[in-house]
């Protein structure tokens, strides 16, 4: 199998498994709360229903509102196809490094925020304002974690970083531990999960992501929800790639890819279960405690940097 075909399989896999991942999380949460839950396939059913429904737009919605779902969806999908999940060295991984990946997601967020402002309701403006503010405050922590990761691998290219982690013998690196904690905290913030935002809330004043997409219907809403699910799976894959990449295959042969696929599913499922556990046991933070959470993530990643220089370079 050529690496190009594995690349395509990877991208399609991330796209198709994303609703499944979202369903897995909600089922875990349901079981933890002593409920049955709607089933792992429910997000699939929701998307299918939404795609069939008619779209209704406000009279004064502009082309920004109309085309934002497509831009958000394609930017997120493009970012997802750049992240290697099964094969370490894919053709597209040279297209964008980690920083460009973050920028693609920022492009999606920009248009989502504009779409929120377009209709001129207070809810859309509120969602846009909060989303852009908190994602701006999350950027320094994200960059600092990436910096700590790139220090030992001397690169921001995902393939190089994964190869470096696989090839170095296992050792306890405090800097990587700190970077992982910071990255997980940022991933929770970026995807709008508890404790930053409640993805299942119906109270408008507590919404951040939902408030921006309040006016959407039909296939547009389906694209936006699917993009959010792909983003969650993308972040999970990224964390698995950067911190626990063992099992990913270097050659594009069938057995290697199959094993990598199995291991990837196990690792991502574990990560998502831990997320469900945290979501069940914590309450959403008050809005103005979120900057403290984000600066805490920055402090932890900066500690990772300091412990790299203090403990790992001197030795």
């Amino acid at each position, binding site marked *: 199998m050529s690496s190009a075909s594995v690349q395509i399989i990877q991208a399609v896999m991330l796209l198709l498994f994303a609703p499944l991942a979202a369903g897995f999380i909600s089922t875990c949460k349901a079981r933890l709360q002593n409920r049955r839950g709607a089933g792992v396939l429910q997000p699939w059913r929701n998307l299918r229903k939404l795609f069939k429904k008619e779209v209704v737009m406000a009279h004064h919605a502009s082309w920004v509102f109309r085309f934002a779902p497509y831009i958000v969806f394609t930017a997120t999908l493009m970012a997802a196809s750049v992240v290697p999940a099964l094969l370490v060295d894919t053709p597209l991984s040279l297209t964008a490094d980690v920083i460009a990946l973050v920028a693609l997601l920022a492009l999606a967020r920009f248009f989502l925020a504009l779409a929120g402002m377009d209709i001129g309701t207070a809810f859309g403006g509120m969602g846009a304002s909060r989303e852009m503010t908190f994602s701006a405050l999350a950027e320094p922590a994200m960059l600092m974690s990436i910096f700590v990761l790139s220090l030992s691998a001397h690169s921001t290219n995902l393939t190089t970083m994964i190869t470096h982690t696989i090839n170095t013998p296992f050792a*306890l690196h405090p*800097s990587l*531990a700190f970077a992982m904690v910071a990255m997980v905290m940022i991933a929770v913030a970026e995807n709008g999960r508890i404790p930053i935002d409640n993805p299942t809330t119906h109270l408008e004043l507590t919404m951040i992501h939902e408030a921006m997409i309040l006016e959407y219907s039909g296939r547009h809403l389906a694209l936006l929800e699917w993009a959010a699910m792909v983003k969650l799976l993308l972040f999970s894959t990224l964390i698995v790639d950067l911190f626990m990449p063992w099992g990913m295959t270097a050659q594009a042969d069938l057995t290697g890819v199959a094993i990598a696929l199995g291991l990837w599913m196990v690792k991502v499922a574990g990560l998502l279960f831990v997320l469900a556990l945290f979501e069940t046991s914590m309450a959403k933070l008050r809005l103005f405690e979120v900057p403290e959470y984000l*600066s805490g993530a920055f*402090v932890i990643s900066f500690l990772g940097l*300091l412990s790299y220089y203090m*403990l790992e370079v001197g030795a």
Partner: protein
Amino acid sequence: MSAILIQQLVDGFAALMLLTSFALLAQHRMLSVLHWFAGQGLLLAATAAIVAYGTDNEELYISALMALLLKGMLLPWLLRRVIRQLHVHREVEPLMNSSMTMLVALGVTLFSFHIIQPIEKTSLLMTRDSMAIATACVLLGMLMMITRKKAITQVIGFLAVENALFFAAIGATNGMPLVVEIGIAFDVLIAALIFGLFFFQIRTTFDSLEVDTMNAHLIHKDDDE
């Protein structure tokens, strides 16, 4: 266990020590501060045990046990009793807001790293990397004492400084002589007991345990006389 693994464990514990010092500064609730303080005690015990194993130093095992009992269990229990009986308001009240404190803490850590770097190079011990972290933890404990309004949190800051000094001792000289260690431990224990007694007395006289209120009361007392 190989020497490299022991070295890495010590480094890992040093990093966790730094994390606990930061966490002490970041907490909002009094009981969380106590929990992190107890955690720091456990961490110290573990570090002492590992270093004892690595250097075959019997005395350090005893130090580890004392750290576990005193700092990990007895002191937190005493302080929790004091907090309960005094009905202290459960929130930590800092002088500057949380983000500012964090930035200053980062600056202090960077400063201690800068200062200790040349000294670290001259040491041959397995724990030399942790000297900078130990210095940083001492300074962070002092920072905690400076930036808190409640007397109890200032005492915990003082105890955190003592913890960090213990850690520094393990790092710099592979533990202090046992006699010194036992002496210091009992001094700290007596200090904690006396603090507890004093808190009762202060509380009865001033109706509050906030340092500023005590100050104000004293000033007014001078005015009356």
